């Protein structure tokens, strides 16, 4: 969707064309061409009612894949973990890879809505909701994988601290327990955070819908009426969450990285893993958000809200994160290489000229070469299509990175007699597919239920930023909301 189209949509703009022409970037990104609230809500709500053929196709295909996951999981539980390709010594593989990957994806939402909110980066407003939803769904999916991975899934509750006749308690020496705690914290926080920012829009939806939607929104909106007091409380609550959730976000992937860093397995036992994983998570996360935004703009006609300038902003983040990631990866590679520990050496040889070399180079290409080579150009940064393409590679690269860390590294240890190679079998491949499908499925589902553009935030933004004509000059005004 081109810039021109957007302009044609914003007819009511009282500001002369020449004004827009100048310094256009900031204005467009800040949506300085306001529309009446009614129209805006309609723009957001109408697509939700339209259940197009495309929607049903996606719904059926994704739903089917999710169902396959369920069946496969059952099959695995009945016969045992042996149906996967796991072996000795590679005891962790795709399930853990998925776990780490989806947690990573889950970081973007918080980063965009919370971190950018804290930094008062105003153009974040239209895209925050979409990112938050992605966080919630990715985390939900990730949270399933420790269970899928268990040898005796039906005993999973033994990981929970609950009073029992055995007088037994889980062991908090184990990083897995820290993991569990961190993820559940993060999941609940981000769900609440997302829900919190939903209230005004739910209320708005409630007042504009009939039938079951009305009932639903009525229930969810918890009787939001938009009084002064409500707004004040809402703002306060949001601020609390905004600042509270950022450290949680950083802690989560750090703790996930400790699952590996705390082990003495060569290639895992590294002190840089914490920040390295966090950056990696944000990297893949931002990439994923870009993909989601591109899709939303295409399918939901959100052209007015999601503009090329937003994509450009995200693209810049992507480039920065790619550089940060490269820095950490270099760190993580150089130190063991200099140390020349026998097992580390074996692992690095495996990556550089072993069977894993193609994967390794593909990873370096998609995580470093491709972003650096393309994202310097504004035209690419502003083209949703190109960014979508690049983001796909980023996803592939980051998935491979986790794959190289988990099963590939496990194949090399101190006793060469016990080295091993892991080859994924059908069950875990199907379950992995199902995991990606689940995120998509939930998104497709939710796109019909809750407004994916935070209308109230956009409106708030447009109230704070405007254009005024003073004499001949058109100046941009900026108001501060009172704290």
């Amino acid at each position, binding site marked *: 969707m081109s810039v021109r189209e957007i302009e044609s949509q914003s007819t009511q703009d009282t500001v002369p064309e020449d004004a827009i022409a100048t310094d256009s970037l900031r204005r467009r990104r800040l949506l300085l061409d306001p529309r009446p609230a009614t129209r805006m809500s309609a723009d957001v709500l109408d697509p939700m009612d339209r259940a197009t053929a495309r929607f049903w196709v996606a719904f059926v295909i994704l739903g089917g894949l999710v169902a396959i996951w369920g069946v496969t999981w059952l099959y695995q539980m009945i*016969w*045992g*973990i*042996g149906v996967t*390709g*796991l*072996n*000795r*010594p590679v*005891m*962790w593989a795709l399930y853990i890879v998925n776990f780490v990957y989806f947690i990573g994806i889950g970081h973007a939402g918080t980063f965009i809505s919370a971190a950018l909110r804290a930094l008062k980066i105003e153009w974040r407003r239209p895209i925050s909701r979409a990112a938050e939803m992605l966080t919630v769904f990715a985390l939900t999916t990730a949270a399933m994988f*420790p269970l899928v*991975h*268990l*040898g*005796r899934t039906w*005993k*999973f509750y*033994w*990981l929970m601290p609950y009073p029992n006749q055995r007088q*037994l*308690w*889980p*062991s908090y*020496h*184990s*990083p*897995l*327990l820290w993991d*569990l705690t961190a993820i559940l914290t993060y999941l609940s926080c981000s769900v609440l955070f997302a829900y919190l920012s939903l209230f005004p829009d739910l209320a708005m939806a409630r007042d504009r819908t009939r039938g079951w939607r009305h009932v639903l929104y009525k229930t969810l909106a918890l009787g939001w009426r938009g009084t002064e007091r409500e707004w004040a409380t809402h703002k306060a609550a949001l601020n609390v969450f905004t600042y509270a959730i950022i450290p949680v976000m950083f802690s989560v992937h750090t703790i996930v990285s400790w*699952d590996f860093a*705390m*082990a*003495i*397995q060569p290639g895992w036992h590294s002190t840089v893993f914490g920040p390295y994983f966090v950056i990696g998570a944000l990297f893949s996360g931002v990439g994923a958000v870009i993909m989601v935004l591109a899709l939303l703009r295409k399918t939901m006609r959100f052209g007015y809200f999601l503009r090329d300038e937003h994509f450009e902003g995200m693209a810049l983040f992507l480039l920065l994160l790619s550089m940060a990631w490269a820095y950490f990866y270099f760190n993580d590679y150089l130190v063991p290489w200099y140390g020349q520990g026998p097992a580390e050496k074996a692992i690095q040889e495996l990556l550089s000229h072993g069977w894993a070399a193609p994967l390794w180079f593909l990873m370096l290409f998609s995580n470093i070469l491709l972003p650096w080579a393309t994202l310097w150009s504004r035209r690419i940064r502003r083209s949703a299509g190109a960014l979508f393409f690049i983001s796909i590679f980023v996803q592939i690269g980051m998935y491979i990175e986790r794959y190289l860390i988990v099963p590939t590294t*496990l194949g090399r*240890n*101190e*006793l*060469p*007699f*016990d080295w*091993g190679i892991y080859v994924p079998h059908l069950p875990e491949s199907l379950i992995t597919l199902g995991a990606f499908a689940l995120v998509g499925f939930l998104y497709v589902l939710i796109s019909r239920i809750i407004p994916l553009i935070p209308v109230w935030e956009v409106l708030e933004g447009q109230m704070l930023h405007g254009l005024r004509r003073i004499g001949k000059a058109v100046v941009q005004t900026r108001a501060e909301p009172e704290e």
Partner: protein
Amino acid sequence: MTLAEHKWTMVVDLDKCTGCGACVVACHAENNVPIVSEEQTIQGRAMHWMRIERYWEGSYPEIKARFIPLMCQQCERAPCEPVCPVYATLHSEREHLNLQVYNRCVGTRYCQNNDPYKVRFFNFFDPIFDEPLTQQLNPDVTVRSAGVMEKCTFCVQRIRRAEERARLEERPLADGEVLPACVQTCPPGALVFGDLNDEASAVSQLLSGNARQFKLLEHLGTEPSVVYLKGGTSYVST
């Protein structure tokens, strides 16, 4: 009367080990360790609590093969213990052994990742004992089901029986009263087992001032209870 603390220790004389595999089969017989099918063996899921690793050194014709019998090293500071989220593998302060409580295991398999010796074995499927082979199963040892990790226990069931006997007879354990199946059967006597807390025991005697002794991957600081004696050399006048 309460029993003395034991520091169970196994000494493996690499100079004597002939790699004959008697220990391997003895362990299977004593501990109900299942034999996995050919297909599973190819997948790398063979289960032998006691295994003999064979390494090549040098190249033909000056080539040497070296056998290293490897079982759970019963580390004093075992890396596999802290990572278990449910205390399925934990330390016995009293026996100085690294226990595996099969019925508590949920199968996170973290212990195997963190085990530098790779001596832990996971039940990828339920074990198969064709009738009437079940008749042979040792009633003193749990038969593990699918999804559970297992490993060498220094034949803890034998240790416990002996301790019970000693307790009833109100006497301390005698040296050599407890022998794991592998040690009991080892023809060349490459395996020696006993209590290091007892200066008179065979292991203490064998290890005192023995220059050949070393521990596997000692640099990791796991403090194994298995001590290896490296291959010696003999003087021949030519």
